[in-house]
């Protein structure tokens, strides 16, 4: 690694570490927004394994998020009077989501493209409807009312609900979650990057490119596809657990189809298969709406003297336009897969030599 690159990385790291402290000064709400943004980046990178690398169009990804969230909610809340520590719940959530991924993957191995999309969409809805209705005869999920008073994270002496003061700096609850999420995010980035250029990662991409040829080249497509589903789902489960802990409340409403589509859009907008592209897409789609929320109303008040368009409406409009423009001008996403760039570099080399 060049010295310049190292310096750059160190600066980024410092900025990321300082961010919640700065945002706390602006308002704790902004730390929460940053946390949700990181959570969405995390989710997109999980989905990137399934959609970006293996090319399996999954429209029900939010189901795994839901499994993780409900796992945390049920194992750490007064609902069943169970209060397990996070290091039991998060792996359990990941494991259950992984199983759910295999359950979804197994019957859909022969499907692809549109057909797979329809089945996964159905799966996502089924999970949500289950959460909605599993309140009778035994009350498991508390139905549409959801589960409240979920325990926050407790890391040794660090309680994530209180504010702690360390080295004269105030660390609020959301700020502490920020650091945990950042750590998890680092993990999922490493996993994505390392898988990308590995035997399994290449097998995924090969299946995406041409499944028949992949089979003929000796890839056990059944196992490798199941692996992609299971891996992607596990990350969804972890994200779900963190979501439940942060919000302190889960209900089926958080896991609607629109969430799946949102996560998928982040992957597609950024650049399927490219880790940095996906991160950029997810950050863009999580921050821009929040910025709008805070700027649209004052802007309209200033210009028209009253509120003409609700920020929420504008948000969907801009979201739609952004997607259409991306697909029109950059069909491979804002920041396409690195393989293409590798080729570009080679071409540059050749012209330089010629």
């Amino acid at each position, binding site marked *: 690694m060049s010295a310049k690159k190292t310096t750059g990385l160190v600066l980024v790291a410092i900025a990321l570490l300082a961010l919640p402290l700065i945002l706390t000064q602006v308002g704790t709400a902004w730390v929460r927004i940053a946390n949700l943004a990181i959570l969405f980046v995390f989710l997109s990178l999980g989905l990137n394994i399934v959609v970006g690398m293996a090319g399996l169009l999954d429209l029900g990804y939010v189901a795994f998020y839901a499994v993780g969230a409900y796992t945390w909610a049920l194992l750490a809340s007064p609902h069943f009077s169970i209060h397990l520590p996070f290091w039991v719940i998060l792996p359990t959530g990941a494991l259950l989501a992984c199983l759910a991924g295999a359950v979804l993957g197994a019957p859909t191995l022969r499907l692809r493209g549109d057909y797979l999309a329809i089945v996964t969409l159905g799966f996502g809805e089924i999970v949500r409807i289950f959460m909605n209705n599993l309140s009778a005869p035994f009350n498991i999920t508390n139905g549409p009312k959801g589960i409240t008073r979920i325990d926050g994270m407790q890391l040794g002496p660090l309680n994530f609900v209180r504010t702690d003061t360390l080295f004269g700096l105030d660390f609020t609850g959301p700020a502490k979650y920020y650091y945990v999420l950042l750590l998890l995010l680092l993990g999922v980035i490493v996993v994505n990057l*390392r898988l990308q250029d*590995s035997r399994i990662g290449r097998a995924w*991409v090969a299946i995406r*490119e041409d499944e028949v*040829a992949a*089979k*003929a*080249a000796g890839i056990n497509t059944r196992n490798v596809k199941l692996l992609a589903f299971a*891996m992607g789902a596990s990350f969804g489960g972890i994200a779900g657990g963190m979501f439940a802990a942060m919000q302190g409340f889960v209900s089926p409403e958080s896991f609607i189809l629109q969430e799946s589509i949102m996560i998928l859009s982040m992957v597609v907008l950024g650049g399927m298969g490219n880790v940095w592209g996906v991160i950029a897409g997810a950050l863009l789609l999580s921050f821009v709406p929040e910025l709008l929320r805070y700027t649209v109303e004052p802007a309209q008040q200033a210009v028209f003297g009253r509120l003409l368009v609700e920020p929420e409406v504008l948000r969907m409009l801009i979201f739609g336009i952004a997607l259409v423009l991306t697909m029109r001008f950059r069909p491979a996403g804002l920041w396409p897969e690195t393989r293409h760039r590798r080729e570009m570099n080679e071409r540059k080399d050749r012209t330089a030599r010629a």
Partner: protein
Amino acid sequence: MKPSVLLEARSICKRFGGVQALKDVSLTIRRGEIYGLIGPNGAGKTTFFNVLTGLYRHDSGDVLFEDQALDLSSPHRVAAAGIARTFQNIRLFGNMTALENVMVGRHVRTRAGVFGAILKTPSQRVEETAIKRRAEELLHYVGIAPRAHTLARHLPYGDQRRLEIARALATEPKLLALDEPAAGMNATETAALRQLVEGLRDDGLTVLLIEHDVKLVMGLCDRVAVLDYGEKIAEDVPDVVQKDAKVIEAYLGGSVGA
């Protein structure tokens, strides 16, 4: 010395609805030969290929490969047993580089799993280096090493054919099955391909070749089988097959000299 048999197909049958695509096809491929499979359009050559490589489920018959029953239930098992193939309409991983395409071919001979890759274990790193080195060697072998980092879909046609062969070779096959490798090639490219296939045989590989270009087949193959309407009508050295009355009838659609 009697040449040893590498593959023996026995009474392979395959039916698509009302069409008997393969009818009791039996043939024997010997170690180290180039075996040609020819026949008019729709004779069942590619169907035979697809059965042999596990892409189609056959109705009856069996295949002995190295004196053992070959498991035709799925393509990756066939590849693991030592049969690799190319496709008539080239099937590469278009958005992967040439090198990566060949590296995918190493999948079946390597072991690294998800956790090895995530943790970058020493064994995984050693294996990954070996995969890359082998892939580079193979690209060199088929003569497209300078194009290693070009996306497969950006390669010229002839190079794509070569890349497909390199990918097949990466699975360490004992039998390489080529489905019309010269299709769409000009005379120069065909001559170069011929050299490549002859080189493969000289390096000890057995080759099964489907081809339309009769001149190429007759010049290149050690033995030839002819399929017509799903049945094998001849199997012998090219000189004999060329003079076979049934073969001439199948190709010309009537008796010659009548």
